[in-house]
């Protein structure tokens, strides 16, 4: 745990001996959940590895159709949001309400910006007939089974990631309302730390998805 908030300011649930034990239990609990998330995306990473091995040339060709620069901008946006998230958690442990709200708001804004850029990218891809499920029949016939597989995996992977980001934005939005309504406390800083872990995980997944889908040309 970040050591900024004294343990004496925390409330202790009755089944724990001390605050440190309580904090460790909830951190481990969160990491167990994050482990299941990593393995959920792991199924997609694994599928990618198998198909890339089987259809190397076709998949490299398909990756050329991805907008590398939009992906790079979005990666930068999420990396920046992880920085503001870490700063928000730190400000919260120092009980600086104004800075906490500001950094959480910045994080939520960057997350929303990511989704906006992603939506624009999806629209571009649909417009250029790159989405197998949305392409008109004549365009669709231009897909080989391998490239269609690539595009479907792309939409499944980035769609699942976007769904996680929407959840994370909703959680942080709820946190902002909570703090505005009834103030910041040491316990709430500890809650933000856990929410922050989820936010960073969404960033971690994108850090893997970006080179996988855009750069392995």
């Amino acid at each position: 745990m970040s050591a900024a908030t004294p343990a004496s300011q925390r409330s202790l649930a009755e089944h724990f001996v001390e605050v440190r034990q309580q904090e460790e239990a909830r951190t481990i609990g969160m990491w167990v959940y994050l482990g299941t998330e990593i393995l959920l995306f792991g199924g997609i990473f694994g599928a990618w590895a198998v198909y890339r091995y089987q259809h190397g040339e076709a998949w490299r060709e398909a990756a050329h159709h991805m907008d590398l620069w939009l992906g790079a901008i979005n990666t930068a946006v999420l990396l920046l949001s992880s920085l503001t998230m870490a700063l928000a958690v730190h400000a919260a442990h120092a009980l600086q309400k104004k800075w906490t709200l500001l950094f959480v708001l910045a994080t939520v804004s960057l997350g929303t910006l990511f989704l906006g850029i992603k939506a624009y990218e999806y629209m571009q891809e649909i417009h250029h007939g790159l989405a197998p499920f949305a392409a008109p029949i004549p365009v669709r016939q231009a897909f080989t089974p391998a490239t269609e597989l690539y595009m479907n995996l792309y939409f499944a992977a980035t769609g699942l990631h976007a769904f996680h980001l929407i959840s994370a934005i909703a959680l942080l939005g709820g946190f902002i309302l909570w703090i505005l309504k009834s103030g910041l406390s040491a316990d709430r800083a500890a809650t933000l730390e856990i929410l922050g872990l989820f936010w960073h995980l969404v960033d971690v997944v994108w850090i893997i998805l970006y080179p996988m889908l855009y750069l392995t040309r």
Partner: protein
Amino acid sequence: MAHQEFHPFLKSYLKTGAALFVLLGATVGASFLPLGGFALPVAAAIAFVKVYIVMWVFMHVRKESKLVWVFSAGAFLWLAVLFVLTMADYVTRAEIPKDEWKTDSHAAEKALQ
């Protein structure tokens, strides 16, 4: 108390953020180089360094107990198991010729001899 404590952390977080941006630039730049078969390992290596930095600094794993280290590394251990066992299957399939497999029930044994 807050102000004196806030600034050193700000510096270390900003440095971490800067490192992540440099690595993003590196991975984009590397994708334009004619690396051939090394393109994939290079992209994967940079991604793993980025993931490690985010987990170690932003997710505070460096400050946690050894038990949390085990749990956070555990997810990636299982991921490695998933990759190694799956790929071990696909990479070795070609050793058994497809047609023989259909017509000759001892093809697998022959291929392994």
